C-alpha cells in the first residue's frame, strides 16, 4: 500500500488528460477490394449518434480486412473500431483507433482469426463506453 501511495502522489502531480478527438479530414485508403474476397457486409447505423456507411469484411492474402466505405461519423473522443461477436461487445477484436470521421478506410484484423462468429462492426467510444454506431455484417 505504501508503494502505491507514493506512486499515486507522483501520478497526481504530473498527470494530465487529453481529449483524443478523431481526425475529421476525409481519407481515402489504398486498399483495393477487387484484390480480396468479400466475406460479409452490412450497413452502419448510428446508436444515439450520427454514423452511416457500409462495413465490409474481406479476406486477402493471409489477412482479413474491415473496409468502411462509404463512411461518415459524428466526432467523439477515443473512437475505436471493434469487430464483435454480439451487439454488447461481450467478445471483440479491437481494430484500433478510428482513422477519420469521413472517407474510405481499411483496418487489418490482427492475428488473422477465424471470423465466423464475428458478426458486428462497431464504432465504439472506448473512454466513455458508448456505442456510436454499428453494422451487422452477414
Amino acid at each position, binding site marked *: 500500500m505504501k*508503494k502505491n*501511495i507514493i506512486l499515486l502522489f507522483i501520478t*497526481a502531480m504530473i498527470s494530465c488528460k487529453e481529449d483524443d478527438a478523431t481526425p475529421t479530414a476525409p481519407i481515402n485508403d489504398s486498399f483495393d477490394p477487387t484484390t480480396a474476397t468479400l466475406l460479409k457486409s452490412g450497413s452502419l447505423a448510428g446508436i444515439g449518434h450520427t454514423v452511416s456507411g457500409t462495413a465490409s469484411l474481406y479476406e486477402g492474402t493471409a489477412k482479413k480486412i474491415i473496409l468502411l466505405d462509404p463512411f461518415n461519423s459524428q466526432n467523439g473522443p477515443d473512437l475505436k473500431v*471493434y469487430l464483435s461477436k454480439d451487439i454488447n461487445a461481450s467478445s*471483440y477484436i*479491437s481494430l484500433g483507433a478510428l482513422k477519420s470521421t469521413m472517407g474510405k478506410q481499411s483496418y487489418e484484423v490482427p492475428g488473422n482469426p477465424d471470423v465466423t462468429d464475428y458478426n458486428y462492426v462497431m464504432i465504439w467510444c472506448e473512454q466513455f*463506453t458508448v456505442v456510436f454506431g454499428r453494422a451487422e455484417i452477414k
Partner: protein
Amino acid sequence: MKCILMVRIKSLIFISLFLPILVSAQKSLPTKSFDLGVGGASNQGTLSAAYIYDWSLGKKEKIIVGIGGRVTSYIGANQYYSTAPAKLTSGSTGPAVFFKENIIANIDTFLIAKPRVVAMNAMINLGYKVTQKISVGFNIDAIGFSVGYKTRGNYINGSQGQNVEAKPTVFNLLLVSDNDLGSLNSEFYGKYKLNETISLKAAFQFIFTEYTTEIPVQQFPEPNDRFRNKSSMFSAAVSFQLN
C-alpha cells in the same frame, strides 16, 4: 500463500483486540468522534462517515492512537481498473512485493463506466497534537467488506476485449502493497479544533476500489478476475467530538 494470509489476518485481529487494552493503561478516557467527509478529483468522488475512538498517549498526551469504523462511498466515471493480485503484478505475494517493480506484461485493464462501491471497514488512526487546536495524522482502513451493484466493464487486453459484468470485491483486507484485498480508504490529514465539539479536517485521500468480474477474463499468465483502481483526491470533513 494461505499461511502468510492467515498470519496477517491474525496480526490485524490481535492489534484490533488489544489496542484498546494497551492504551487503556493511560489515565485519559478515549475521545469519541464522528467524522463526515467529502472528497473529490477528476471524474470521481467519495463520501465518508467514521466513528473513531482516540486515545492520547505520552507524558504530554500529544500522540493519538485510535480505532474506529468507516463507511466510504466511492463514485466514479470511466475509471480504469488494473490487474490486482500481487502474484501477477509483482510475481510474488510476500512482504517483498513492496520493493518489487510491477510486471507490466501481466497487468491488464478493466474499464468501468460507472463504478460505485460502498466500503465498510474497521480503521486505524495515528496522529500527533501539534498544538491544543491543531493535530495531524494518518488513518487507514484495515478490514471489512464492500457492497455495490453489478456493472458492465470493458476488459482490454491489446486487440482482444470483452465487456462483462463485475461487482465490488466483497472482502477487504489491508496487507502489504498489492497483496491488499478489496476496497480500502486512507488519509493524511490535518485537523483544526474550532471549539470543544467541532473540528475541521482537510485530507489527502488515497482510496483503492476493487471489482471482481463474473468470469476470469484475464488468462495470462494465469486466470484472474480481480481488478483494482487506485485514486487520490483531496477531501474535507467535519469532525464532531461526542464526549
